[in-house]
């Protein structure tokens, strides 16, 4: 598929491809410092890919399924090598979901969750994760830093995990332990996230049954 700039690749496209069942997604474009525009969107692409990989990892998808490689228009041979390598790596990883131990329903709902959070993720990217365009090293240093770990945890991962919990509770009440087991999130983390959601009134705790439920679902259950 042709886009005018790697920086134009929306994370939504990556998510859509995986929703459609693609086993791998490859993004290729101009080398950093060789922008054909003046906007240096390829640095933004680098940031987007690194962030999306973290998100994929968080929801249990092998982040190696997503790949970014720089290519000049003259590098046909390198392009062929890269594509062969991409195909080989994806084959090695195996089919999406199955290799990760995710059933199709769970995979879809997780991708859906991320998709719904993309506007928020874009806001976070602009406010907190933007690196001054300069060098690949700076991008890599930042995106692989402990500071990034912390920011990602607080600003994105918590949101995604919370959304996953909410999505799970839509289907019916669950206990902390059930949530932890179903979503693969540590019980301590579940307790922390649920605590926040309860305080915000998004989730209710049924004291008697020790289960968590959504306010709306509860009504439904009664009816």
């Amino acid at each position, binding site marked *: *598929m*042709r*886009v*005018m*700039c790697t*920086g*134009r*690749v*929306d*994370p*939504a*496209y990556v998510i*859509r*491809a995986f929703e*459609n*069942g*693609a086993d791998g997604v490859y993004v290729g474009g101009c080398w950093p410092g*060789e922008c054909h*525009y*003046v*906007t*240096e*969107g390829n640095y*933004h692409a680098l940031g*987007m890919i690194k962030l999306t990989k973290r998100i994929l990892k968080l929801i249990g998808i092998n982040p190696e399924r997503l790949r970014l490689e720089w290519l*000049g*228009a*003259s*590098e*046909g*041979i390198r392009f*062929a090598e890269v*594509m062969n390598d991409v195909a080989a790596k994806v084959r090695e990883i195996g089919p999406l979901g199955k290799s990760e131990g995710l059933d199709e329903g769970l995979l879809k709902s997780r991708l859906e969750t991320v998709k719904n959070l*993309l*506007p*928020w993720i*874009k*806001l976070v*990217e*602009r406010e907190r994760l*933007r690196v001054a365009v300069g060098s690949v090293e700076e991008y890599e240093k930042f995106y692989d830093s402990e500071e990034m770990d912390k920011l990602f945890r607080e600003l994105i991962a918590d949101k995604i995990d919370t959304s996953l919990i909410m999505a799970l509770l839509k289907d019916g009440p669950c206990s902390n332990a059930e949530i932890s087991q179903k979503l693969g999130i540590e019980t301590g983390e579940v307790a922390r996230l649920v605590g926040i959601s309860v305080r915000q009134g998004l989730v209710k705790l049924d004291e008697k049954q020790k289960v968590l439920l959504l306010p709306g679902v509860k009504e439904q259950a009664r009816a």
Partner: protein
Amino acid sequence: MEKELIDKEQFEQLRKSLGETNTADVMVVGAGISGIQASLDLAAMGFKVYLVDKAPAIGGHMAQLDKTFPTNDCSMCIESPKFIECSRHPNIEIMTYTEVERVEGEAGEYKVSLLKKPRYIDEEKCTGCGVCVEYCPALVPDEYNQDLCLSKAVHIYFSQAVPLVTYIERDKCHFLQDERCTICEGACKTKAINLFQKPERVEVEVGAIVLAPGFEPFDPELRNDYGYGIMENVVTSLDYERLLCATGPYEGEILRSSDKKHPHKIAWIQCVGSRQVIEGGNSYCSGVCCAYTQKQVILTKDHDADAECTIFHNDIRAFGKDFERFYQRAENLPGVRFIRSYVSIGKEIPESKNVTIRYSTTDDGVKEEEFDMVVLSVGLNPPTEFEALSSTFGIELTEKGFCKTNPMNPMETSKKGVFVSGAFQGPIDIPESVVTASAADALCGQLLAHQRGNLATAREYPEEKDVSGEDPKIGVFVCHCGANIGRVVDVPSVVEYAAGLPNVVHAQEALFACSTDNARQISDTIKEKGLNRVVVAACTPRTHEPLFRDTLREGGINQYFYDMANIREHCSWVHSKEKDVATKKAKDIVRMSVARSALLQPLEEFQLPVDKRALVVGGGIAGMTSALSLAGQGFEVFLLEKEAELGGIARRLHYTLDGMDVQSYLKDLVKKVYQNPYVHVATNATISEASGYVGNFVTKVKAENAVREIHHGIAVIATGAEEYKPTEYLYGQDDRVMTQLELEEQIVKGAEKVINADSLVMIQCVGCRNKERNYCSRICCSESIKNALKVKEKNPNADIFILFRDMRTYGLREDYYREAADKGVKFIRYEQGAEPEVAPGKSEDGRDVLKVTAIDYVLGKKVELDADIVTLAAAVIPPAENSDISKFFKVPVNPDGFFQEAHVKLRPVDFAADGIFLCGIAHYPKHIPETISQAYGAAGRAVTILSRDTVTASGAVCEVREDDCVACGACITVCKYGAIELVDTPKGKKARVNPVICKGDGLCNPKCPASAIYLKHFTDDELFSQIDQAVPSLAKAGKTAAQGAKN
């Protein structure tokens, strides 16, 4: 401002007086990058152009290069789009394989006789499929690949050639030699082979001629320099360029011809054929070899990280913009040695065919070392046919065989109406060849201004049909591309498949969709079958999209209803051994394209009126020259100067190396400016505000205490530069220490202490080539030589010492360096970190002197010099105001503070922002003739806009759905073009895109949290439809159809 406009009558009179010529056609001789640029600009200005080259394809030597310094851009990738541009321009007639026989007449009415050599191919019929090449049994050395591999007697010059037609080499063809074979005739499906073709004479009349015949690489085979021609593993740098290239003899692998093995230890020998005063050598410096060698070293290390690269060099001449950093990049690579030494070839080792080189260093003395491969960095000679050029065109040559030019106007030859651009002026690099091309165009424009547009033709198209109410009716054309696609992909089965896809009402195959016949068939089918979307499954949109868009316009529908499915580069070429999957993949690609095309929207390209007035910022030589050239081409100019007087830094210069009297030149120039009724000068002027875009700028200027608003269509930035005020070497503390500019002033004044000085020491590289300013100021070496020669002229007994790091008297200035040495000027090299020291002291005879101490690397010891005068070659530095100009006009400066052009190689006087141009030392330090070339170049480029009534902005730009916009400004943060701004609307603040400034990269789209901003022609829906069709079995059925309906 209105009252200042000259009245219309006067205007017309002037226009008429500009020339009395009749013909508005121009001939460009030589179709290398310089000739190509000259043709494109001339055609854009409204002239009809004949682009003539003796080679079978346009492109010149640049088409043979792998990459270009100092950015390592792929040479072919940046040049070949210009080929296409030339071939598609209605006002450029390309005449390849053609030589100029005779030129008669004079400026304004030249009659040129041309001889079209027989290709033995009917150019109209040949589609460039290459089938004949496959069948041809006669092998010949491949000239494009420097004879390093074989081609056929019938072949295409190179795969991206324009025109993309074959030609037969007469001497090697079995038929043309002894009528033994006619295989090609049988192989050709379009009957394009004509073995009885005869040479054809053509006569054309033109008003002016631009000579751009380029250069000839120095040929070391003539004298077997360094074993070339005898030893197999000694190659020239141009041979090596082909070895590096993916389209080269070994498909991008660097191999030795002796054993086809990868060389591991490679040596480069610099200055081969340059800086030599021996028989057969060139005394001048070729100016490009240092940088291209560094490029080759970097690329070699890319190919093989363990390669050992050794460069044997004299001075390293990294004098161009960003060259110093490029040199450092090469030098700092592991396994790379730069060795300053003259060398000789030892021997070829019979078993390995390795070559030994003898060299000497001050530390180790003479050594002999073995290398796997030796690359000779050959210089630039004048074109081989320079004598014929001289007699045919009636132009004078220099003694070296270059074109003799006017030092005050390097494009002017000795013949009126014949201009010269590119390396025939003397050894210059690509950007200078491009600049001088645009500059020669400006001069043609001045000569023929009143005729501009008279003979040029515009294309006419049928009226565009409104199809907005129709359902998608898609036509799919699947191209065989001769055998390129058809041999691998089962084309009929792809056609059948396409016919069954949703919304497809017509599908067919084409042998060559791009051939004139097939393209006409497509436009006819659009009309007959009422198609409102077209997909061509063929090659790459990079080269062919403009053609097919044009085909849609011919068919009467909006050109954005076109989509290209690339089943050649992305399919048949890479899967040639897996035909089944290739066909399957071709179907996938077509399906995606069909889905996308159903969603395409008609887009409008804006026509914006152009204000035909120009603004030139800066009244130095650059600004004045540009202003006069624009005025000479019939445009009104506002010239702003921040000082009270015109002239810029040239007011402090008095003479040049080649003897130009700068002050009288300047006086004359200022007079011409003030006398020209088209030029309005404002001195003591400062800009307080600038807004607008190409064709429509508004700039607020404060001059002589009044603020006024200037409306203009283009702007030329020529703000100049300054001399660095040294803090080193007692400058400012001892009045015997002065800069070169100050020395020049003293010499001109006849100051005794300078003229009668016994000893004068010049220190180079003061304030640059250091940490703080990591660039070379380019002009200082020549300036010091200039002043040294002047002092010697006045006082032959003066002792002059020049303490230098590398003498960078590039190009033809080398001869003056030699002259200075011959006249007894002493050159002592010092290295960074061991700078000379200057201290007051007494000489042996008791004089008060400045003691200058330095380490002489040749003698290997400290030397102490007694100086009466010490002059410092102070850096050229950008003025502080550059940052204001940069903000006003939204044009960038580089890390050193000089303005940054749009593209280092091919757009050297353009800014990325349309309609703003740049020239002079605001761009980078340069000599006066170079500044003059750039000033004309900027004027030439500017007229390509000013000569039009409107400018067209692309339809594929961004737009905001205002209802969705939350005015967060995320889009604005990433748009470096400054195309988006927040505006007040009844619904509050909303982002709005100025479609004229938007370049359509779409970076803002994924930044928008509300998906309110979208790039037309690449909308989310269009792209999602492709994603959904990529893996259709897994995609939700009907998704694309649903979206189609939504639209």
